């Protein structure tokens, strides 16, 4: 089977799954009327197993678990199992075809396969900035090269595992078929995004995953907070998308094409000089594209939607907001590597924003109480790492971190979902504790994930994160400051992850009694993916060991595999020789040490001496408040944009409408009335006046004549005589 020519099937399978859910979903999973299921989470009362917990201030509840106390579950039709087979099955098919295609690609001498299926937008001629005539066309084409091959394997592989997990997690939820329909649709759009051969089609996927994110975040649409979170995600994304579109248009104007191969060829041909001094037009393009990436990948200042996105079900958080959608921005910047390589100033911006976001999110994660919030900010922080890597020119490292992060972050989210499932819906870590022996599989897989993210050598996170820190230090575009920020963030990462572990699994149980009675391990559908992802977190990292360790080419395959995509082999080789190996060892030691210290401090704080964090909290109350309230960024945005632009603008426009527009209308009315008055005056005095005057005139003329009409006959006879006299006079005269 020639998988390379069947690339078009890879996105088609999940699309077929989504379409089947659209047409047949209701048939397969009819929703019986259920008093609880109708409003999951609006009135959280006895079903959710944490009836007494309304006092605490967490905002999100993963309310998919209304039925686990056993006395309530709706009878699902046997055909529901079909949904469980169709949708994950479609993703599995995509994964198998992707694997086959990638394998066949690797056998080819030139690892690029581009297929244009058909032309979507036909050629519209237009003038470029330099006056040349170009045609604007977007084709429906697929490009399979090393970069996109990594992406499709991650998307379909981890997507499949999460689908399987979701069959167990979402089993008791209403809207089961709707969920899987959206889920499959998301996989379709994500695959379109990564397989596109031009920016236009990439943008189609970009928007599509934004749409699915909105649909899935607002899955529990009966809850206002879920709907609001969905809207927030979409709107903040939109801000970024505006930049993306502007960047695409500017690219069209300057380069005349949107196709990746053509753009890269133009940029690497030497026509454009690197813009080392300040910002030029290429920097503008790069910056605009980066703004789009900022929105999609939740970097500062457009990261505010990601923590709120935890309103969605946990599988959604795992797949979309950890492994795949948020990495679309990273993928896009990596795809535009040729552009960023020519614009060092924009790369610096990218690195700075990434580093800043990383440390900002890490500080917020230190004090959050909701288990999913901690993981959400952790995601933002790790994405910051990826952009830091992109910014310093280490493109393959960023993709590598994306790869490893997908494994352990998805694992962490799914484990947290398992914990929440076990706790019957409880998400606040202050009411957990001592769960280690009660949910062992969840505990050990989460332990693996935490170790991975903390950067302990041997597991995946260490290799990618350490490489990022090294590149931040050593790359010509890096700096010691960036390295220091990265290191501090790593310390905080280790700390808050172990804080999470301690609060959740170790120590005394702070669980509510009625919840404690129902703690149970998750079903196999959920634990199996956990274990597979755990294995991945352990072994995935070994594909990118540092050259320093000299373990042979196989353990360094990731970089070599991706090298053709970035045409950076020569650059990498040049960079390798600039710093001494000893520096690298020392820095590696630093990052390991800092991770161990972070873990130890967390253990000390939360396991041995739990009163210390409480004391710190009360003593450093302002600082704690600042961190707990996310640096008040949401409040600032609210004030500036929602109230300022939104309501303020609304007020201004309202005044405009009332005063000027309505004023104009009222003025027109007044003018009409005034005109009517003038017209009435004219009619009364001039027109009627003329009529009345004419009658008056005639009357005046007739007065002398009227006097003659006395009514007396003798007077008339007298006039006869006068007439005779007149005749005589006439004859006399003549």
């Amino acid at each position, binding site marked *: 089977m020639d998988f390379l020519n069947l690339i078009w099937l890879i996105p088609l399978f999940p699309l077929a799954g989504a379409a089947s859910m659209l047409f047949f979903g209701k048939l397969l999973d009819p929703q019986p009327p259920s008093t609880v299921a109708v409003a999951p989470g609006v009135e959280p009362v006895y079903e959710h197993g944490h009836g007494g917990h309304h006092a605490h201030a967490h905002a999100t509840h993963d309310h998919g678990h209304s039925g686990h106390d056993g006395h309530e579950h709706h009878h699902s039709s046997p055909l529901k199992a079909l949904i469980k087979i169709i949708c994950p099955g479609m993703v599995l098919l995509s994964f198998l075809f992707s694997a086959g295609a990638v394998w066949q690609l690797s056998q080819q001498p030139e690892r690029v396969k581009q297929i244009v299926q058909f032309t979507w937008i036909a050629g519209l001629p237009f003038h470029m900035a330099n006056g040349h005539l170009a045609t604007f066309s977007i084709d429906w084409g697929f490009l399979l090269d090393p970069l996109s091959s990594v992406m499709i394997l991650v998307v379909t592989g981890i997507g499949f595992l999460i689908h399987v997990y979701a069959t167990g997690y979402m089993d008791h939820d209403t809207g089961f078929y709707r969920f899987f329909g959206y889920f499959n649709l998301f996989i379709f759009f994500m695959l379109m995004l990564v397989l596109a051969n031009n920016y236009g089609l990439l943008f189609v996927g970009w928007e599509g995953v934004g749409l699915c994110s909105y649909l899935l975040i607002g899955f529990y649409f009966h809850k206002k907070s879920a709907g609001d979170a969905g809207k927030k995600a979409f709107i903040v994304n939109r801000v970024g998308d505006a930049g993306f579109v502007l960047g695409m248009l500017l690219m069209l104007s300057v380069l005349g094409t949107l196709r990746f191969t053509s753009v890269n060829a133009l940029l690497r041909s030497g026509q454009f000089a690197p813009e080392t001094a300040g910002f030029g037009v290429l920097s503008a393009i790069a910056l605009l594209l980066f703004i789009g990436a900022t929105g999609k990948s939740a970097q500062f200042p457009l990261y505010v939607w990601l923590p709120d996105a935890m309103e969605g079900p946990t599988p959604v958080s795992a797949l979309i907001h950890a492994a795949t959608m948020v990495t679309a921005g990273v993928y896009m910047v990596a795809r535009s590597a040729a552009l960023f390589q020519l614009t060092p100033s924009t790369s610096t911006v990218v690195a700075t924003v990434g580093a800043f976001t990383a440390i900002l999110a890490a500080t917020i994660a230190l004090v959050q109480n909701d288990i999913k919030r901690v993981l959400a900010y952790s995601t933002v922080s790790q994405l910051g790492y990826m952009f830091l890597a992109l910014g310093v020119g280490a493109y393959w490292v960023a993709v590598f971190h994306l790869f490893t992060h997908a494994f352990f972050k998805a694992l962490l989210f799914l484990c947290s979902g398992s914990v929440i499932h076990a706790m019957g819906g409880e998400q606040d870590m202050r009411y957990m504790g001592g769960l280690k022996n009660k949910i062992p599989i969840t505990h050990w897989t989460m332990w693996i994930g935490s170790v991975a993210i903390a950067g302990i050598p041997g597991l995946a996170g260490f290799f990618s994160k350490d490489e990022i820190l090294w590149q931040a230090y050593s790359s010509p575009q890096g700096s010691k400051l960036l390295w220091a920020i990265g290191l501090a963030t790593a310390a905080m990462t280790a700390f808050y992850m172990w804080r999470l572990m301690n609060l959740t699994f170790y120590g005394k149980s702070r669980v509510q009694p009625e919840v404690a009675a129902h703690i149970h391990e998750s079903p196999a559908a959920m634990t199996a993916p956990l274990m597979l992802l755990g294995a991945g977190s352990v072994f995935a990292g070994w594909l990118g060991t540092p050259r320093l360790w000299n373990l042979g080419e196989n353990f360094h395959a990731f970089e070599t595999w991706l090298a053709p995509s970035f045409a950076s082999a020569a650059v990498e080789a040049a960079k390798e020789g600039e710093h001494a190996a000893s520096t690298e060892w020392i820095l590696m030691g630093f990052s390991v040490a800092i991770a161990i210290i972070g873990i130890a401090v967390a253990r000390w704080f939360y396991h041995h001496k739990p009163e210390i964090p409480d004391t710190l909290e009360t003593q450093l109350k302002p600082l704690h408040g600042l961190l707990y309230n996310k640096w008040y960024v949401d409040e600032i945005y609210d004030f500036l944009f929602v109230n300022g632009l939104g309501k303020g603008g609304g007020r201004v426009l309202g005044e405009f409408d009332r005063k000027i527009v309505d004023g104009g209308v009222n003025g027109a009315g007044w003018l009409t009335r005034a005109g009517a008055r003038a017209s009435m005056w004219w009619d009364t005095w001039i027109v009627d006046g003329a009529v009345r005057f004419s009658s008056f005139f005639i009357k005046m003329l007739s007065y002398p004549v009227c006097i003659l009409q006395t009514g007396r006959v*003798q007077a008339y006879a*007298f006039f006869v*005589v*006068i007439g*005779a*006299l007149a005749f*005589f006079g006439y004859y006399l005269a003549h």
Partner: protein
Amino acid sequence: MLDTVLFYIFALLVLGGGILTITRRNAVHSAISLIVSLLGVAGLYLTLSAEFLFAVQIVLYVGGIMVLFLFVIMLVNLDQAAKERQFNRQWWVALAAVLAVGGAIGYFLYRGKDAFHFAEAAAGQAASVLGNTEQVADSLFTEYLLPFEIASVLLLVAVVGSVVMAKKRI
């Protein structure tokens, strides 16, 4: 000679009667004065050799119209009217105008007095053997037949009209 004297006597009757007619307060006196004037006019007709007309004047005018006048005067009670002012306020204007007309007519007559001498030769020829009445009848029933018939229709209309006008209830 006789003609002259007769003329002046009849002229005096006519004018005197006329003046009396228009100046009497009592309507009956006025009517009697008018009769006198009409008799004088009849006499003038006679001097002008219009015998038939003399007879017609007496019979019709005096005997018919004046009798009618007197009847109507009796019918309409004019005692109250007799006590009123007889002449209207504009009498002097009327008098002036009439005097002016009279002056004009006098002037015309004076200027044209020579034109009223007609040739006597017409007397010799066509000396008709017929008497005046026959001559008038001759002319009336041959040459002026149509006006005669129309005049009779006029009289018929006048009869009907006066009867209708005088009825108390139509």
